[in-house]
């Protein structure tokens, strides 16, 4: 298992830890009001105006500066829409407003993945079973190996270039994710079932393709190609950014994974502990956090996925303090450092785990004090 930097907690400590977080969440939820509503509407405004600006500039995209600016602005708009508006609204963070415009059950985002598929694979599966091997399909998305606990297959040798492709076309990876194709390959899911789930995936894909690669380019008339190209690049910009932020949430150096057996006895407090150990934050300024959908506060997001993201910054101060009180590692670092950790995992676990000979070398190295031994991960009994 991945070594843990957190000390094991007694059952009582786990319960007390959970109670403190429950109290924190209730305090924040009770204080929600006009300012939070205004915040999400301001994000909405920024999304709409940047999209209008970006698309308008692309219509003049025959001029290179307009094309570059328009593409960047549209990419920015898509990033904001997917991350700070769509992702958060679809989590139900603003359901309390009772406003159909910002409601989890009716929102659909500018992304190839349908809202319903996303709510199932992300809100339910990933957020409930975070970092549990065999249950959290976001751990490598069914085809990447990022932890030594995952079995190695020769195909994993290809995962560095495969990861690059995933980054470029991330929305399509996400769109296919809920179909569970990897389970189909393993024979755990029937072809019939996959075909049954396919039509909504295709409907959403068609809508997205038509919008960015037919309707808007056609509206531009003679400037069909610059608009089409700009839309394509804007989508790729959003894909790469979303990939980078999301991979930094759970695949950095010190995050932990858990065996399925933890679910047998897991209490609410233990669920909180797992979310903390399984997530990692990114340091950055306010603009960075807005553009990353506040997923730089991945820990806070995983503890309270349905608390409005504009509150994570203030929550983080308290979560960090509480984690410290209980000797739990609060995994945070610069974007560069955390992304480095992710890349290291993609490269390292493309290869099989240590052979006995290599393991012997590392044990000797540890004995000689060349590297420090660390406790292995365990969720307190």
């Amino acid at each position, binding site marked *: 298992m991945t070594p843990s930097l957190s000390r094991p907690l007694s059952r009582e400590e786990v319960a007390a830890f959970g109670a403190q977080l429950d109290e924190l969440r209730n305090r924040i939820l009770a204080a929600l009001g006009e300012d939070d*509503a205004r915040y999400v509407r301001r994000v909405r405004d920024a999304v709409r105006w940047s999209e*209008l600006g970006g698309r308008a500039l692309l219509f003049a995209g025959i001029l290179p500066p307009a094309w570059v600016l328009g593409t960047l602005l549209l990419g920015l708009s898509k990033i904001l829409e997917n991350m700070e508006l769509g992702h958060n609204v679809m989590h139900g963070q603003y359901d309390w*407003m009772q406003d159909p415009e910002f409601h*989890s059950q009716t929102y659909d985002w500018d992304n190839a993945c349908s809202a319903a598929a996303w709510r199932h694979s992300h809100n339910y599966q990933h*957020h*409930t079973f975070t970092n549990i091997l065999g249950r959290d399909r976001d751990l490598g998305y069914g085809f990447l190996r990022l932890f030594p606990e995952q079995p190695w297959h020769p195909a994993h040798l290809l995962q560095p270039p495969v990861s690059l492709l995933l980054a470029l076309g991330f929305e399509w990876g996400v769109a296919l994710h809920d179909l569970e194709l990897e389970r189909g390959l393993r024979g755990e899911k029937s072809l019939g079932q996959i075909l049954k789930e396919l039509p909504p995936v295709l409907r959403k894909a068609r809508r997205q393709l038509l919008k960015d690669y037919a309707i808007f380019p056609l509206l531009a008339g003679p400037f069909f190609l610059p608009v089409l190209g700009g839309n394509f690049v804007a989508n790729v910009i959003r894909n790469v950014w979303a990939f980078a932020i999301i991979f930094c949430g759970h695949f950095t150096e010190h995050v932990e994974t858990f065996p399925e057996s933890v679910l047998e006895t897991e209490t609410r407090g233990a669920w909180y502990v797992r979310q903390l150990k399984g997530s990692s934050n990114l340091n950055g300024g306010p603009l960075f956090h807005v553009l990353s959908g506040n997923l730089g506060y991945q820990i806070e997001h995983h503890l309270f996925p349905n608390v409005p993201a504009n509150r994570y910054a203030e929550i983080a101060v308290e979560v960090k303090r509480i984690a410290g009180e209980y000797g739990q590692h609060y995994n945070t670092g610069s974007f560069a450092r955390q992304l480095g950790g992710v890349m290291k995992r993609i490269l390292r676990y493309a290869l099989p785990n240590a052979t006995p000979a290599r393991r012997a070398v590392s044990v000797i190295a540890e004995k000689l004090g060349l590297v420090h031994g660390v406790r292995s991960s365990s969720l307190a009994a």
Partner: protein
Amino acid sequence: MPPRRTHSTAANPSPLASFAAPLTRLLAAPVLRPFLDERVFDFYASQLGAQLSLNRILARVEAIRPEARDVLSFVLRPNTNWRGFRPGQHVQLTVEIDGVRHTRVYSPSNAPAAGGTVTLTVKRHPGGRVSGYLHERVAVGDIVELSQAFGDFVLPDPVPAKLLMIAGGSGITPLMAMLRDLLARAIDTDIVFAHYAHTHRDLIFADELVRLGKRHPNLHLHFGVTAASALPGELSGRFSGEHLDRIVSDPAERRTLVCGPRGLLDTVDALWEDRGYPEPPCGEAFTPAVMSATDTPEIVLRFARSFTDVRGDTGVPLLVQAETAGLRPRSGCRMGICHSCTCRKQSGAVKNLLSGAITAEPDEDIRLCISVPVSDVTLDL
């Protein structure tokens, strides 16, 4: 707080809005619908005119006038999405208070012919969130949201030759709409109209009724006060058989319409049955605005869409109780984080198991997995 405007100064919409309104209708044409994202459309439309929307009925407050103690009438001018109403029907009024949208049902009190406006007459309830907001904060020029009109409590068609209308308190509003409509259409029906309130100061529309009574010989007016001493010629105390005998000589020949508190309807129903009148009265009770938690464990869960009623349990989440009743609501994490089981609660009080908060708002979205009923509850399931 600045002084509230209660009379319209410049009612003219901006030139931009008058240009945009036909554009809205053009874009709303059926051929273009599939390509339109309503939220996106409404955002840009709202920049051109505050009332422009693809489907939503946004109404501007044109005038506010007092009608009785703690009773105000709001004259609303809806946008072109409004399809009108029949006197006696209701509309849902939605206002946003501190970031949260609240919806209440009111019956318009005006005649539909009156220039396309909708007049809602609202009595302020002690502690009433929406009525208090309407009375204190809403000003001329504000925009509120309406639903289309609905409800079957309407004038019989053709209009009967003789009518008896009995109004209790603010239950007068649908009957007032019918009365105004009948008189405006110069229909020569013989109308006996009895209007009850606690005291004289609480008699809504009293002055106007008196004026109408003087002008229209076919309108026979009777006022009743239940908590004050009646003036000569008025009815004293609650409606009774004795009152009925005083105001009509031919009750069996009249079509009777009643609107008021539940007790008034029960009295009328019992009296009609007792005396064996052929035509049962047509009545409507306004439900209390807020249902509060009951002490008795004897509660009823009503699954409106499934036409299923079951005995409810105040200790078990609604999700489990719905499943036990044989329903299959969508669900996910079962711990309140994923919002898969979000469901519209039409009425009743529920307790949130995570926060301990009890909410009794009509028409609010709740998560079934963490909500237990604390009163009779009706769900849109």
